[in-house]
């Protein structure tokens, strides 16, 4: 069994950042990614990021992924395993991993879980018809493989993912019939909403799907209005003739490993579902398990990268790795994260974080 300082699980923005910063502290890092390539959702993100220069503001997601991957490649202390799925983490400190078709075991001294989140689905009649996608699949098809997912799409969800992917669809030459949103207000950034509005795409808040139509594939979707109690209002049906329906209705943290490791969890709707209790160092109730990114609470990728940095620094520090600028570096990252979360749009996230924050220090 191989001994290793730190295993980082997940090669998205949080995991990449955690690995880079832990390695800079001098820790040996094994970075596990279950898909064939690093980058997580960043590689599909074609929009320019918000935030400040430290979080690559103004750069596009896929460019940021390349920058982080270059930083990873330059670190001799980091070993990268793609096609590698963490299977379980056991009370004796053993981590089991499936890489390609081989079973391997490790005994990491610290584990940083950065598994991200998965898309939520929506229940409505005929929701299994071909032509109905999650927003992640639409982005993968278009932005990774250059495949047009449909000719005319209805987008469900006006959070950031919904309005951003609607814009990407337009860029790819797909017609977007409308963006519908059950909530009475647009959840995504208004600037993203305005970008699709000036392309003529209606945004219908207070609307939901009544049902999808089609026999062998999607041919249309009936949409209706919701009242203030989120009940469908009879007589408000509208039929959209579309061959694509894209669901962008939220994300749930991918926490299976944390449950299995025995971390104490709490259900926090503001953060997307069950998330682990953690202290300010992103350390869970299991002293060797750290978290970063969407698995710790669904947020923007900019915040995930800063959390990754904090978790990477803290885990390496806990293993007695030190650099001269550790304290300053850590403090700066902490301030950066606070700044990102300081606006009114982050109030929900901050409220959620209060419900899982452990007081005691490392």
């Amino acid at each position, binding site marked *: 069994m191989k001994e290793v300082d730190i295993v980082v699980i997940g090669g998205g923005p949080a995991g990449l950042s955690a690995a880079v910063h832990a390695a800079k502290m001098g820790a040996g890092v094994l970075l596990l990614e279950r898909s064939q390539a690093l980058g997580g959702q960043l590689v599909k993100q074609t929009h320019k990021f918000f935030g400040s220069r430290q979080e690559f503001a103004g750069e596009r997601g896929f460019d940021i992924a390349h920058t982080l991957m270059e930083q990873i490649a330059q670190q001799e202390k980091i070993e990268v395993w793609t096609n590698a799925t963490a299977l379980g983490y056991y009370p004796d400190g053993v981590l089991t991993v499936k890489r390609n078709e081989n079973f391997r075991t490790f005994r990491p001294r610290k584990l940083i879980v950065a598994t991200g989140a998965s898309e939520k689905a929506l229940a409505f009649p005929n929701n299994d018809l071909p032509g109905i996608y999650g927003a992640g699949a639409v982005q993968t098809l278009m932005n990774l493989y250059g495949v047009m997912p449909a000719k005319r799409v209805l987008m469900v969800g006006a959070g950031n993912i919904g309005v951003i992917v609607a814009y990407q669809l337009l860029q790819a030459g797909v017609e977007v019939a409308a963006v519908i949103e059950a909530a009475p207000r647009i959840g995504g950034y208004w600037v993203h909403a305005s970008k699709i*509005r*000036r*392309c003529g795409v209606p945004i219908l808040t207070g609307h939901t799907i009544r049902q999808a139509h089609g026999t062998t594939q999607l041919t249309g979707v009936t949409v209706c209005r919701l009242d203030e109690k989120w009940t469908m209002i009879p007589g408000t049906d509208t039929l959209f003739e579309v061959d694509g329906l894209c669901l962008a209705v939220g994300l749930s943290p991918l926490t299976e490993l944390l449950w299995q490791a025995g971390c104490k969890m709490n259900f926090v709707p503001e953060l997307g579902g069950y998330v682990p209790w953690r202290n300010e160092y992103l350390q869970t109730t299991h002293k060797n398990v750290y978290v970063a990114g969407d698995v710790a609470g669904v947020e923007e990728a*900019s915040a995930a990268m800063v959390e990754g940095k904090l978790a990477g620094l803290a885990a390496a520090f806990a293993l007695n790795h030190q650099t001269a600028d550790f304290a300053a570096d850590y403090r700066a990252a902490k301030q950066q994260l606070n700044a990102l979360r*300081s606006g009114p*749009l982050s109030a929900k996230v901050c409220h959620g974080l209060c419900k899982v924050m452990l007081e005691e220090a490392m």
Partner: protein
Amino acid sequence: MLAIDGTATAEDLQAVLPTPDRRRRGAVAVIECFQEIPCNPCADACPRGAITMPENISQRPVFDPDKCNGCGVCVGRCPGLAIFVVDYSYGEDTALLKIPYEFRPLPQAGDSVTALDRQGAAVGSARVVKVQEQKNRTTILWLAVTAAMATAVRNIRLSGEVRA
């Protein structure tokens, strides 16, 4: 209303559009950023210090139209594509607009294109004066429109006759 349908109201715009006096003095940025989001590349971009961030990155940028010369660097840099430049001094009854554009194919200088408003409705035609491609892949289009349209136009559609 922005929160309901993604469109700025006349009242929202009133607060960011240039004053009649500033209009007369030539090109100036219009920052249509109405929400407190954590973002500051516009302030980093401005070479003249006309855009500054208050202490907190999540506040809206503060714009000094007297320092702005309408260069348009911020137009290409804003991640939200929410900054435009308008120059009412461009011609007798013609204004010059600089808008961010991220669609392909790009128009070419000299093309006549359909001018769209903030709801994507066609409001007239625009002449493409310049196509300024940038390293970050946001292109800045320079458009000549009638002065009366300059406040409304925020997007274009390529007209059928322009491209075969």
